[in-house]
């Protein structure tokens, strides 16, 4: 008997998000103390391609400040949202995210440690030193949360337990960041303070290069586990019954999350709530298939962070707000709304 293949219910969202992202990113590049037109963008790109040097001021602002910042924003937003999708899938719980489960604060601690002790370190990996330090910090904090959650709630991680442990671990690592800022000498102390608030103003082409690698590799690797995370929505026992090696998948997915969020945090500091809100909005829109959540999440995360960056630059013009303040100011009320909605629906 022939079976007509049903149309995918997820169609349309990804192309729409991609178009929206390109339009927004271009808008964000043009926006600033010096407006930049399309003609100047085109001429700057062609000049940079054919013969370096010979750029005028506007063209240099575009090429050396605006463009790397816009791309870094896109990549960081994508990384954070993906991190949220991965953690929510693992915990089978729509209200966790890297900022609540210690990954971000651990990464900030690792980065701060590098700022203070970096000069004394023997180990150096060029551009990658700071991201690696952040990833190690993020891995440490995330491991703490996982291990504590696993032992605290016999075998099933309850939402409340996980969130409370996340709060404790966050507090621990943030006070570590504070301590490092306290003992550091001034220029370092200032950059550590920035780390706590989140900022994109330091974006450079070097950061873009590193982020491009981790974000794209992270997304591609994560997509291979989309179906495993789908199966995990049924519970660990059911996933095992469907042939998913649950312990292994957990480890790999957490590792991807730590690298994505750790590297993003190493360049921008802690930016909370993007990983919480984005997957939730996508689920409301179409559903919970993880392939869709990952691709859509990367795009939507990029859009959300680009919007937040525009807001950060516009609200106190000519001064600039740390972007972490913008995302938290918008994200925290939404988080509370989610918690309330969840209680009505599930308990």
């Amino acid at each position, binding site marked *: 008997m*022939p*079976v007509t*293949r049903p149309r995918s219910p997820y169609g349309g969202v990804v192309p729409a998000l991609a178009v929206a992202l390109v339009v927004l990113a271009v808008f964000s590049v043009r926006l600033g103390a010096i407006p930049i037109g399309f003609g100047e963008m085109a001429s700057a790109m062609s000049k940079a391609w054919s013969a370096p040097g010979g750029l005028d001021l506007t063209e240099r602002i575009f090429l050396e400040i605006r463009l790397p910042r816009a791309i870094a924003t896109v990549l960081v937003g994508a990384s954070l949202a993906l991190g949220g999708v991965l953690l929510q899938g693992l915990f089978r719980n729509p209200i966790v995210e890297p900022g609540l489960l210690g990954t971000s604060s651990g990464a900030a601690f690792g980065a701060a440690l590098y700022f203070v002790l970096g000069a004394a370190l023997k180990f150096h990996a060029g551009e990658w030193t700071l991201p690696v330090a952040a990833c190690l910090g993020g891995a440490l904090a995330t491991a703490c949360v996982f291990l504590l959650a696993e032992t605290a709630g016999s075998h099933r991680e309850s939402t409340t337990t996980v969130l409370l442990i996340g709060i404790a671990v966050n507090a621990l690592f943030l006070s570590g960041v504070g301590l490092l800022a306290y003992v550091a000498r001034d220029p370092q102390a200032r950059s550590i303070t920035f780390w706590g608030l989140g900022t994109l103003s330091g974006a450079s082409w070097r950061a873009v290069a590193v982020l491009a690698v981790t974000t794209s590799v992270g997304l591609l690797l994560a997509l291979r586990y989309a179906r495993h995370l789908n199966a995990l929505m049924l519970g660990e*026992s*059911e996933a095992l019954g469907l*042939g998913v090696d649950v312990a292994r998948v957990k480890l790999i997915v957490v590792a991807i999350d730590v690298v994505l969020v750790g590297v993003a945090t190493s360049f921008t500091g802690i930016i909370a709530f993007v990983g919480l809100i984005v997957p939730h909005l996508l*689920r409301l829109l179409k*559903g919970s*298939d993880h392939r869709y959540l990952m691709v859509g999440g990367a795009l939507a995360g990029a859009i959300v962070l680009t919007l937040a960056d525009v807001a950060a630059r516009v609200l106190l013009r000519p001064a600039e707000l740390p972007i972490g303040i913008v995302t938290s100011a918008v994200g925290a009320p939404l988080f509370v709304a989610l918690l309330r909605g969840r209680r009505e629906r599930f308990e």
Partner: protein
Amino acid sequence: MIAADGLTRIANGRRIVDGVSVRFEGGRLNLVIGPNGAGKSTLLKLLSRLVRPDAGWVRYDGDGGREMSLASLAKIRAVLSQNVEIAFPLRVREVVMMGRYPHFTGRPSAQDEQACEEVMRLFDIDGVAERDHLTLSGGEQQRVHFARVLAQIWFPEPGRSRYLFLDEPLTFLDVFHQFDFMRKLQALLRSDLVVVGVLHDLNLAARFADSLVLLHQGRVLAAGPADQVLTRENVQAAFGLAPTILRPDGKRPILVFD
């Protein structure tokens, strides 16, 4: 056929399952009964190889003593746990298609789609295929999960038996759907399909079982046809309540507790 010998599982120093040796044949309805905490669910997990035994072994026919990988095991063995809860919005069709995950990578094949359509029709959920399962009643959700586990082993595998494990599948169902499900299960029985279920309701077990295992404190108290297992003495020993046993048709016992 499943054979198990000396199966033992220890948790927190307690023998949850203690030296259980059983055999379950294909083409029959094999049901496990017993009081709360008798080790029924754990036994089912051991038999379905979700959990490794601390002692003893489980053998499926055709696996030649070698252990199958999780992925190839999932093609011939499906398990329905107690209380599957999903916290995320998903269409009924998507949940059922998860049962076919072991059979495809990338996109589902026409055969996978066909399996989903057929199981959804069997359990009367084809009308709600595009609805979010969270909007369904408890009984409907349970039928979605029946459909999912059956989709997993819907087509015969040449040269291999298929195995279906059901842990208290009737919990959320009204009496009509309880009978409906058990009858559908009976109609599906084939010699290459081994079904093992845990049931709470002794009368339903007596009505439908081809073979019963009565578990008590991790051990087999009695095993065999319903009328031999569900005696007044056995039920008294396992549950601490002595029933009056009626046999209206001379064979199947009906237990009345008073």
